[in-house]
């Protein structure tokens, strides 16, 4: 491996590390909760069954692709404007196929941390 590619590798890896380090404790906790409870439907990964409109998006992301029609990012983690009251209303009240989440699943503290994560500065 020559020096240039080593340098690139270092820069790429340090960028990745830097981004992870940018999360505050609340945001980092929020990401853990998000990855457990939200990501299986609202994540960005491709793949899976049913095709989800042929893009292999996960169900929540797929539904938001149809809803936003390109006007807004369908991946929740890519939104920069999600309001706390909206997030908590949807989590606690459900919306269409997304059911209510209870406090024994996502506690109030967990919810605040998810909100912090989704509103992390970028």
């Amino acid at each position: 491996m020559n020096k240039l590619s080593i340098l690139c590798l270092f820069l790429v890896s340090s960028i990745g590390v830097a981004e992870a380090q940018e999360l505050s404790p609340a945001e980092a906790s929020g990401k853990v909760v998000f990855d457990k409870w939200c990501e299986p439907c609202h994540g960005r990964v491709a793949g899976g069954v049913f095709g989800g409109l042929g893009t292999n998006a996960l169900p929540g992301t797929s539904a938001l692709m149809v809803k936003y029609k390109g006007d807004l990012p369908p991946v929740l983690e890519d939104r920069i404007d999600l309001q706390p009251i909206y997030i908590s209303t949807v989590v606690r009240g459900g919306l269409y196929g997304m059911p209510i989440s209870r406090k024994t699943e996502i506690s109030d503290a967990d919810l605040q941390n998810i909100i912090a994560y989704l509103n992390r500065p970028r």
Partner: protein
Amino acid sequence: MALPPNTSQAEFNRALAEFESVVGADWVFSSDADVALYRDSYSPLWGEEEERIASAAVAPDSVEEVQEIVRIANRYKIPLYPISTGRNLTYGGAAPTLTGSVVLDLKRMNRIIEVDDKRNYALVEPGVSYFDLFKYIREHDLQVMLDVPDPGWGSPMGNSLDHGVGYTFGPYRDHFGSHIGLEIVSAEGELIRTGAGAIPGSDAWQDFHYGAGPSIDGLFAQSNFGIVTKMGVKLMPMPEAFKNVTVTVPRYQDLQSLIDEVNYLEDSYLIGMPFYNSPAGGGLFDPTPLGELMQNGWPNPEQLEAFVTAQNKPAWSVSFHLYGPQEIIQGTWTAIQRRFSDKIAGAAFEEEDLHNLPIPDDDIPALPDKAFLGIPNLEIFHIVNRNPMNDNDPPDGHADMFTMAPRTAEGVHTAARVLAEAYQEMGFPPATSPFSTPITFYARAFVVAVLIPTWRDSAKNAASRALYERCLDKIAEIGMGTYRTNPAFQELAVSKYSFNEGALLKYQEKLKDAIDPNGIISPGRYGIWPANMRNNRG
């Protein structure tokens, strides 16, 4: 806010205070906002007086706390409604069967007590989810494969206790059928263990199921005879490999021959879950409009054969996974092709590559068949979520209506025809057709499934409920019933199991009266009411 039946606010406040002394104030939920979290998100009665609403919820963290809560509930005669992860969507979710019940939220009891990959079992508490168990197995590099339902965020215990089902190898798809050993808190607060677990000091609780004498395990599924606090789960050893294969047959009339052979293979434990489809009928997710074929009522066999011929596609297909060492997979597949070729003229075969197991983590997201490989996921939500076809008015939920048909072509066709009639009678376009295929959740029965939308709108829900009830009525006329349903339909569903003037329900009621004299466990669940509520039906 709802109160428990025959309980004053003052009495209820005292009971809540006693609950708090057991679990701590943080884990008793009685405010309107907190109790609203225990609504059934997919309720067919949303916002109506008949919607089942809890009075409060209590979340214990241990068996001892559960026992104490049960004793308190008995003193006050307050009904409890135990839930495990409370994600039983379409079948009631976290909401009780009887308005005013206190939900006993067991989510905090989420310990994975043991997973053994030499004797191939797990022992879990109610609040463990399939995701939790999968993660545990992966992190500990245990060589066992789960059988998961769709979606995968529910509880192995809770799903089993509602007769839930999965997607892998025959015996494991029946989740209650693959439990092994229970620990139960009785309606009077006593602790019971079944099977070998009833021998003090036994190490065989998850090896030997029956014990000596009558097994009572079946009493605790889809019922209200006690609160299960531990369950053993039989697990399949992680296969070395898998291969997905497909058999197609050309003619409409070939379905029975196809079923006969698949039944042989399934009942001989040679194949994974048979997944039936109809290429000529358009397939499951891209139904070809049958157009003129359906314009003059249900077509006759000649019309159906002509239609199939015109489509130039096989009438039927069945796909399944073969699991095991590759030598066995290849040998089994060779034998399967030989048997089909001997029995059905024109049978054709397709196969995918052999893949080793377990699947590496990085390869999991792209897998189209996660459930067939025991990988929990939420992708089933695609079926009911917003999509281009329902974008103007996506449903708020759905109530699954699964008809249990005999494992024959006639069983499938008859159920599909009767369901189509029910839909038409209620003013809905039919959701079933002559090309409807069965789902083999239970290895020895056929499921003919329809998903009826639910709404946060009382007028639309009224129409959905009427449709659901008509379906239940009509399938009963042809001797078929359902296996699982929402509390809104449970009484109607169990009323169809009426042999000998309802002898079965009467027997269950006698048991209920003896086991739960104060009627505090889930009154009304699957039609079983305690004596003090029986005449009024709650």
